[in-house]
């Protein structure tokens, strides 16, 4: 369908990206790296959207639009997140996620 590239390849790539993102989010202590992992998760979802759109409704573009929408939201989210991180850094001179535990019991 994609000129010889089967759907499963797209899905395999997206799944690998997704779990790499999850792994990075859970394991890395640096807030910036965690944010990057989050982007990976979002983009893996984008790939799925585009692939399924092409497979199921070749004449429609909703999936494409949705992934563009996600990219836009992700961009603004990233800017907010970075702003927060900068503020945290100003306060703690550190962006290690394990050091941020003031809100516990």
């Amino acid at each position, binding site marked *: 369908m994609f000129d010889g590239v089967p759907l499963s390849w797209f899905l395999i790539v997206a799944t690998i990206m997704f779990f790499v993102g*999850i792994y990075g*989010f859970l*394991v890395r202590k640096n807030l910036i790296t965690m944010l990057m992992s989050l982007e990976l998760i979002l983009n893996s979802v984008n790939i799925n959207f585009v692939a399924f759109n092409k497979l199921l409704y070749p004449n429609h573009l909703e999936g494409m639009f949705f992934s563009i929408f996600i990219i836009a939201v992700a961009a603004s989210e990233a800017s907010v997140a970075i702003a927060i991180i900068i503020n945290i850094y100003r306060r703690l001179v550190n962006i290690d996620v*394990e050091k*941020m*535990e003031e*809100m*516990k*019991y």
Partner: protein
Amino acid sequence: MIDFTYTVWIVLIPLIIFVLVGFFGNKFKPLVSGVIGTSGLFVSMALSYYTAYQYFFVLPKAGDVFAKVIGYNTVWLKLTDKLHIDLGVLLDPISVMMLIVITTVSFMVHLYSIGYMHGEKGYMRFFSFLSLFSFSMLGLVVATNIFQMYIFWELVGVSSFLLIGFYYEKDSAVAASKKAFIVTRFADLGFLVGILILSFTTGTFDFITLTDPNGPAMLQGSGIMFLGLSTMTWSMIFIFMGGAGKSAMFPLHIWLPDAMEGPTPVSALIHAATMVVAGVYLVARLFPIFHFSAPVALDVVMYVGAFSSIFAAIIACTQFDIKRVLAYSTMSQIGLMMFALGVSGYGEEQGLGFMASMFHLFTHAFFKALLFLGAGAIIHAVHSNVMNEMGGLRKHLPITHLTFLIACLSIAGIPPLAGFFSKDEILAAGHEKSMILFILGLTISGLTAFYMFRLYFSIFWGKEQHYHHTPHEAPKVMTIPLMLLALGAIFAGFLPFASFVTSDGKPFATHIEPFVAIPAVLVGVIGALLAMVFYKKETNIPERISASLGGFYHAAFRKFYIDEVYLFITKKIIFNYVSQPIAWFDRHIVDGSMNGISYVTNGVSTKIKGFQSGQLQQYAWVFITGAVALTLAFIYLWTN
């Protein structure tokens, strides 16, 4: 028809004075508040006399009968179309008579207090409370319905409480005021229950409807029995319980002697002449119901009255505090009034007891207020309440001595003073009922004469004591009320009372029966002479007699241990067997369950609070694990 709307001002003027003196009193000099109070009461008194004149002489009688007139009425609380609580002024012979008694005595006491309370702390407070009391008492007697009476009944109780506890820095006064309030309040519970039963049975609060001999209250509910007595009988017994509490009838009398902790003018006004006769007034007000639908309750009134009377008379012979002697004497006289109501029938000559009771109430107000005010003048001069510390005062207090003697003669029933006539009617009423009651009445009269003259001779004769300073006669402002009241104590008996106040409003003629009057005067004279022999010169006869009576004397001296019985019941029985378990239940069950809930919550939250570690990635782990687990679970469920 005459417009009686102005009678509402008799009641309202004291209220206005109360507000004026109570709230703005400290803006004036102390004396001013006394003068305002006294002059206000004077206006009330003048209006009352005018009302009495209009009512008895100008108002045309409805066929020989003094009709009941509503002077003023307003609906205060509308429950249903038929059942509503009004506030108003009801004029009938007994309420007009009470208006005169209350305003007169209250005016005298106000005037007297200007001198007596001179220089006391709380002078304005005293006068404002006195006015509050006058207002409540007047509102009580003119009540058009039983609920208005109940409202003012409680107001009277609270003003009595305030005035007994006037010296609130004295522990005994505080205790006495609390005792008076709690005991009368307890009795008023019975009153309220009685009102509820009565109004439930008859469907009305209104006195005119209630006391109409052909009205709904008569023989109503006599079919419904509880413990062998009809509903009406129960309601009347409960209402009488309220009356007995206010009128210090056995066994609810314990507050009255202690109430003497209040200033003496208060004792004269509240605890001798007006408030304590409210119970008698209540029974008199509902007399047709008592007579027609609840004769058993009327018998209760009679027995309680007679017993209280002789009981109090015996105690009065053994007490040494002059105010306490007078307090027990009051209780005894009120017992006589209740007794007279209890033996009375209804209508014209049958209602002799009713008339006698009201007559005695009327004359008693004068001579008992006089006795108390005289006692106040004595206490003022000697600074002591105990009669052993007095003696030979007749030279120092000539006016007090003379007026006190008049009051003693009057209460002892020596003709031609007021007490003779009213007591004679009571004895005649007792005589009509049975010989035993007549002899009982005679005994009480003899005892009355004895203890009053015991008081008189120990205070004014006997050996002269050493006083800190020579006792001097009270100022004019105090002796003038004494003299005026003495006039009342002499001449009040000459009123043809039966042509004004009777059980059914129909006048009749009374005459003095020699076979009643002669023994009555004889026992009075014997009592007085005995007291003279015992107490005029210092002798050891009283000690010898009291020693020979032994245990009985001791019991009477200790007031037959009624206070101790009450203390035993409250402290030992109620506190230990009722209050303690309730307190335990409150502390352990009610509080315990609440504490338990908070304890469990606290423990669980301590256990699980480690969850909120503040570690973002730990939360993410939990979230993702949960999401994965849920996903697997759903897939598993859907595929099967």
